[in-house]
């Protein structure tokens, strides 16, 4: 069998205050969609940050392999250039940097080639239309004064423009109204189907998953992956909550 796109082996991570992730094992193959669920404070975002290499989160054990390479010690930008992507739960505001020039810069740095400007413009226009974003947002400062919904759309816009092989979506649906969730889902679907992108979707709700093909579901409790199952696990959590899995984390560790 081919090497998985992402292979997380026995990964533990900590911040100054203590360890947050314990012995995580996870494999994601190209084109697969994995869902990560868990109660608040389980460490879902921490896993996303750690996979992406946020310096605030220290790997205390184990390793992360991406596309056949050990990326555990690689800087965030290098991981991104290899094809990893993280959609932020709370995207940051950067005054004075327009969304468009940010995208141009990122694409240029990612590919290491000069940008084909006409093609870029066309693609940007089309993708913004797909996400029902007003074209004027391209000229606005990155995330500055964007509503919660627009910020999330801007994240998916970046996802589609940067074409990563694997994307972590950290609660992309949180705080969005029904219409916005639908629009954002359409963007994710586009990434999944047309670009054959792999996904790790961190979510609380199932709305965003309705139009997506899900391959695996994982449940994270207190920094431990306690259960992995198929798409049916989403339904189960939806119906019964996490109660069944609470207290299982010790078993998971053993």
């Amino acid at each position, binding site marked *: 069998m081919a090497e998985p796109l992402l292979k997380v082996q026995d990964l533990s991570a900590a911040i100054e205050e203590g360890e947050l992730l314990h012995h995580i094992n996870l494999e994601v193959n190209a084109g697969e969609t994995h869902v990560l669920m868990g109660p608040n404070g389980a460490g879902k975002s921490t896993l996303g940050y750690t996979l*992406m290499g*946020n*310096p*605030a989160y220290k790997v205390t054990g184990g390793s992360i392999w991406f596309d056949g390479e050990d990326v555990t010690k690689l*800087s*965030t*930008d290098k991981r*991104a*250039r290899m094809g990893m*992507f*993280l959609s*932020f739960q709370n*995207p*940051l*505001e*950067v*005054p*004075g*940097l327009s969304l468009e020039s*940010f995208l141009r*810069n*990122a694409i240029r*740095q*990612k590919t290491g080639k000069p940008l084909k400007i006409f093609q870029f413009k066309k693609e940007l226009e089309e993708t913004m239309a797909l996400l029902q974003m007003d074209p004027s947002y391209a000229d606005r*400062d990155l995330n500055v004064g964007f509503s919660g919904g627009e910020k999330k759309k801007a994240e998916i816009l*970046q996802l589609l423009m*940067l074409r990563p092989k694997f994307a972590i979506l950290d609660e992309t649906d949180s705080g969005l109204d029904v219409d916005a969730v639908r629009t954002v889902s359409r963007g994710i679907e586009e990434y999944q189907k047309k670009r054959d992108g792999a996904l790790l979707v961190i979510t609380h709700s199932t709305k965003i998953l309705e139009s997506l093909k899900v391959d695996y579901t994982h449940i994270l409790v207190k920094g431990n992956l306690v259960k992995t199952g198929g798409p049916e696990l989403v339904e189960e959590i939806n119906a019964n909550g996490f109660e069944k899995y609470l207290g299982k984390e010790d078993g998971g560790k053993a």
Partner: protein
Amino acid sequence: MSEKQNIQEVDRSLYDFKDDESKGFFRMKEGLTREIVEQISEEKHDPKWMHDFRLKSLEIYNNMEVPNWGPPIDGLDMDRISSYVRSKSNMKGNWDEVPEEIKNTFEKLGIPQAERESLAGVGAQYDSELVYHNVRDEVAKSGVVYTDMESALTGDYADLVEQTFMHLVPPTDHKFAALHGAVWSGGSFVYVPKGVKVDIPLQSYFRLNAKGAGQFEHTLIIVDEGADLHFIEGCSAPKYNVANLHAGCVELYVRKGARLRYSTIENWSKNMYNLNTKRALVEEGGRMEWVSGSFGSHVSYLYPTTILKGDHSHCEFTGITFAGNGQNLDTGAKMIHIGEDTSSYINTKSISKDGGISTYRSSIVIEPSAKRAKSSVDCASLMLDDISRSDTIPAMDVRTGDADVGHEAKIGRISDEAVFYLMSRGISESEARAMIVSGFADPVSKELPLEYAAEMNNLIKLEMEGM
């Protein structure tokens, strides 16, 4: 960091005059003398009034103390002031002595070798005469006078020069203004006649060829009633002078209903004491716009002042200051409201890095006559690390009951989260930081003509690399 150390050592060797003495140069351990000033005046063929003015300024200079507030200027040896003043004629600089830092910056900014040497103050005069003449001929058709300051003293507008020269910044203003009055050399004179609107920004070409200029240069601009001018001075290439004192002076007269935009990007070599004085007088309904970028220098004192004398006169000041390792930059703006319904707006950004100190200092004065004056100050500081400093010292003196005065100050640090965010899109850490800083500077870039904005962004990138 080690590079900085290196440069400071180079500087010391430059000011070590022992070698010169052994080769028979005259001793320079002396203050500024009457003989030196007389000599300058003679070399420049000054008219009588200017000759007298220089000597009068010298007297004031000798009786004044150096400023005792603001960043320390102990490194400036006032006992050796004559060496700063006469260095150009007595010392032939050598390209080999120009610090590597500056050579590298020239390289990165893509400046041709001939210009590099001239900018570094060590080469032959760069021949920009042709360019300059073309521009001058172009604007001359509309009656605009654009010439070097020395020629202006004897030209068609000699009387006007006499009536205005150092009237806004009198030699009594402070010790370095007095010094300037005594030894000034080079600079630009511009006169825009009534109602003439100059379409293209006028750029100072003297940056390349003025002998001894860039140190005590004088800029005098008069925009007559209803006229309009954008004047650009300075450039992003570091100005290197063997002597490390800059005491220039800029005087701007904006007559009734006129508009003047004065843009500068200054980038002094990092041994420089930049003690520059800039002032504008705005008559009724006139409009003054400053765009000011302060880069480089070891110590800067720079507070462009605008006197809103006429009713309904208006001033906008947009500025940016970047202080890196070993730099203490004290910059800001002053507004003096005298006329009724006058308004002013100050918007500044300051950045400090690698232990650099950046102080924003401003003064808003609203005189009792300035009924219904409005003033708004907005200053933001960005510190790039834990060892840098940023201070804000805004002063307001309001003497009317109906003034509308506002002040907003923000001091922040570059956010690690934001850097991580940009890096997660494949942008390198240094590039991510540069993008955040350029974004912070964007409101200033927007005010500059495109090529200058691009130059300034390059300069920010270079500073970010720790040049």
